[in-house]
């Protein structure tokens, strides 16, 4: 713990994205009465502006990399990667929300303010190098998300989602905090670098102590990334939350939680890697199997995508189980691709659900290919990417993850993982089947034409997904360069 809390200008620059997001979020709430009378779309414009500014802030911060606030934050390539990722997810969410909120008559400043707060928490998670900072980031991100999940307060499903998310989320945070407390007790520090030194050092604390702490933190984080066996909340929450928020929840908080996961386990806890590897291995396998097989049985499209996101968490855990820099880079790449395709897929769903989110069954998408060719085409790109068909980001990410796993001799995990992904093809294909091979349903016949914002929210991630698949070199290089975490 640093002796004094100085606040230098360097610290401010390195902390810029969070500052921008918090200030703009607060501003939104303050300006609410002024703006609301004129145009409710202005909230969206302001939050887009805020996110763009935060993006600029993240780039600026990366120009001055290094620790901030006495080592509590670490602004490096890794942090920047995830900051940019969660901000981009936020932008896509805002774009997808314009029309959605208008349709539900639910445009308020809180929605956007909460979104900005949540993203600021995720940015903080991405660059914290201190367990307390991780905890604070996690709480900022989660509490805002709990409220967002229940944002449509007249909808019973949203209420259930919010409550479930809140209760189980609090439990998970408690687990995590308990782990942090044990670490502090054992090593007299919460700074990841110091913890690592203490664990690897001469008079290391009892391995049982550290092991239990690691397991508790693992449980907390596994909950946040919705990895099996801590996934039970995810389907209900993603199904009940407003669809753009499901998109957001399945990408932003998850990516940030994985950033934390990697930062903690690959730096502080790396010395006891042999101990935690089986945990990650098991959770990865279980997530892939549970996610993919449960998704086969779903009839609700949001629920199906929720189970699919559990399976995808499993793939990322495979990369973690590899315990190598390549593994970290693979996880980074995969999360980028995953965020784009999953946000895109949920956005495509949101174009059709209608007022009160009536149409969420898979069969409601019948004939979308004829009625809304653009939406259907973009949705197909996301689905093919989720399947892992080459020339999409999803394929290359998967390829890279399993390459990392094979390098670390996890051959059986690779074989089982890839086979489960072949099973997964079945339920993604089901959506393609109804979209293109069935006659139009009530929902697709009555679907509204795309608004400019929504088209952008579909086309941008689709272009990104293809770009990651066809020219992955650029992102790959950045991920490879940033995967060597400061230890």
């Amino acid at each position, binding site marked *: 713990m640093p002796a004094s809390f100085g606040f230098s200008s360097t610290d401010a620059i390195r902390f810029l994205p969070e500052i921008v997001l918090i200030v703009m979020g607060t501003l939104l709430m303050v300006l609410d009465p002024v703006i609301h009378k004129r145009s409710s779309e202005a909230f969206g414009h302001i939050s887009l502006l805020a996110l763009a500014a935060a993006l600029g802030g993240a780039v600026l911060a990366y120009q001055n990399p290094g620790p901030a606030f006495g080592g509590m934050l670490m602004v490096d390539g890794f942090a920047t990667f995830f900051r940019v990722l969660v901000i981009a997810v936020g932008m896509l969410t805002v774009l997808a929300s314009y029309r959605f909120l208008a349709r539900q008559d639910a445009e308020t400043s809180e929605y956007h303010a909460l979104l900005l707060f949540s993203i600021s928490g995720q940015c903080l998670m991405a660059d914290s190098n201190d367990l307390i900072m991780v905890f604070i980031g996690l709480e900022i991100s989660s509490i805002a998300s709990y409220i967002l999940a229940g944002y449509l307060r007249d909808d019973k499903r949203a209420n259930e989602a919010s409550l479930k998310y809140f209760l189980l989320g609090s439990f998970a945070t408690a687990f995590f905090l308990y782990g942090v407390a044990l670490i502090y007790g054992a090593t007299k520090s919460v700074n990841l670098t110091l913890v690592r030194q203490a664990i690897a050092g001469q008079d290391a604390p009892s391995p049982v102590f550290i092991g239990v702490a690691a397991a508790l933190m693992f449980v907390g984080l596994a909950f946040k990334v919705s990895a099996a066996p801590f996934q039970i909340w995810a389907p209900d929450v993603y199904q009940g939350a407003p669809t753009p928020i499901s998109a957001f929840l399945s990408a932003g908080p998850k990516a940030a939680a994985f950033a934390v996961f990697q930062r903690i386990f690959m730096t502080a806890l790396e010395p006891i890697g042999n101990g935690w590897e089986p945990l990650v291995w098991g959770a990865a396998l279980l997530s892939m199997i549970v996610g993919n097989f449960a998704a086969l049985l779903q009839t609700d499209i949001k629920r199906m995508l929720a189970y699919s996101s559990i399976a995808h968490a499993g793939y990322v855990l495979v990369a973690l189980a590899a315990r190598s820099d390549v593994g970290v880079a693979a996880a980074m790449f995969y999360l980028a691709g995953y965020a784009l395709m999953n946000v895109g897929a949920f956005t495509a769903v949101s174009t059709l659900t209608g007022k009160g989110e009536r149409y969420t069954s898979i069969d409601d998408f019948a004939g979308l290919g004829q009625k809304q060719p653009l939406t259907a085409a973009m949705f197909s790109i996301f689905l093919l990417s989720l399947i892992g068909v080459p020339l999409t980001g999803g394929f290359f990410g998967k390829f890279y993850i399993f390459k990392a796993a094979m390098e670390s001799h996890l051959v059986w995990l690779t074989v089982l993982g890839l086979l489960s992904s072949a099973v997964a093809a079945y339920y993604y*294909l089901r959506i*393609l089947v109804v979209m293109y*091979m069935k006659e139009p349903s009530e929902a697709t016949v009555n679907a509204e034409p795309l608004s400019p914002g929504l088209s952008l929210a579909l086309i941008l991630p689709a272009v990104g997904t293809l770009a990651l698949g066809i020219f992955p070199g650029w992102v790959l290089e950045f991920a490879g360069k940033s995967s060597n975490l400061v230890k």
Partner: protein
Amino acid sequence: MNHPFTMNLLAVVLLLPLFGFLAALAVPRSSPQASRVWALAISLATFVASLGLLFWFDRGAPGDQFMVDVPWIAPLDIHFAIAVNGVSLWLMILSTFLTPICVLISWRSITRRAKEFYAFLILLEFGLVGVFIAQDLFLFYVFWEVSLVPMYFLIGIWGHDRRIYAAVKFFLYTMAGSVLMLTAIIYIYNRTQTFNYAAILEMLSSGKLVFAPGEQMLLFLAFFVAFAIKVPLFPLHTWLPDAHVEAPSAGSVMLASVMLKMGTYGILRYCLPLFPSAARACAGWIAVLAIIGIVYGALVAMVQPNMKKLVAYSSVSHLGFVILGIFSFTQAGMDGAVYVMLAHGISTGALFAIVGLLSERRHSLEIADYGGVATVAPWLSTVFLIATLASIGLPLLSNFVGEFLVLQGTAIANYQWAIYASLGLVLSACYMLWMYQRVIYGEVNPEIRSHVPDLSPREWAAMVPLIAVMVWMGVYSQTFLQPIGKVTARVLDQTQVNVPYRVNRAQPGAEVANAR
């Protein structure tokens, strides 16, 4: 040969369909005619470009020609590397040759969502050409999977009644196999740090890369299962009848004529040279499966009431010959295998096209709904007869040369195999001629009289090239066999690497001379 135009011609052949696909998406939905014309134009242009490759191809060289090598994904050293050799050249031309024919035979039968249909057909061509010319394992896998997507849509959207079931089954079968292959590809990459196929072979032959026996066997099986599903080798064939029967005619043609060859080509190009000992160790088992496939496919074809299903099962039988020829590990057998690949592509492609023309007229695929077609459509019947005779291996037509060579090569390796396999030839005459007789001769069904006109000029344009190639392949096989032989000889040579025992290759020259 070293002119910049010829050097990049292969890239042109590959990228023209991709360009055609993207442009086809921009064609307005309201004018299906524009989509058709565009698809025909782009596929003809691709075909002409591929003929250019044939013209400048050095027939005497066994190696890869028209190499284009561009770094693609730098951090992993993945290259966009394409080239052709004496086998892939023909398979590539088979794809570019059949695509315009598929456009022609779909002209009238595809009216619903024509724009997407032709776009997918052109995209399929891109994938297929890519599979045959990729020189980088990663790139190969990319094309392997990419070709799956348009075919899935072709079957699923424009197919018959049970199209969705067939499309999903087709996709999942192939996907399951190919993820195993992906595992093996990654494994090889982690061992060698390269995807460059030529470099990997070089490491193998120089002894820098040695797979332990168990390792080699697992890798071989990972590749082989992926390919065997595609071929399809008995008992992995169950997706095939569904996919063929439910697909639209153009889909059936591309599926049977080209896509199945992706599997056999993969075996010849990747399985044998990479894992020679494992391939030889498994040869006996595989040959037995191939023979079961030959006989089983023929017997099941015999009892089919549905023309498409009959032709589909005949493919299982014919492709058994290809596998048998490859795993005979003889020059004649391998030459024959490649020859059957091409000949089957032409003759079965023609059969599916004709069945498509018939069902376009009569709206039925059931043999029982036909009869007496010869009286109302004599030319159609003649074309059908030639394709039928080619398919059953009549001398002077395409399949005969290939099947003869396969049997000869097999007889050198194991005489009993050849005896059992030749049963397939006899049976093929039974089921094909019996079908021909029931459809073409006999009482003229009144429905037939009113609904079955003879070939239109457009249909003539589609069928004449097929007939011409069948005759050419039957009469002057040297055109095809010379470049093929160079490649198969090299594959045979590569399979000697790391093999503790040398297979009897008594007077390799003499066998070939006899065969020709």
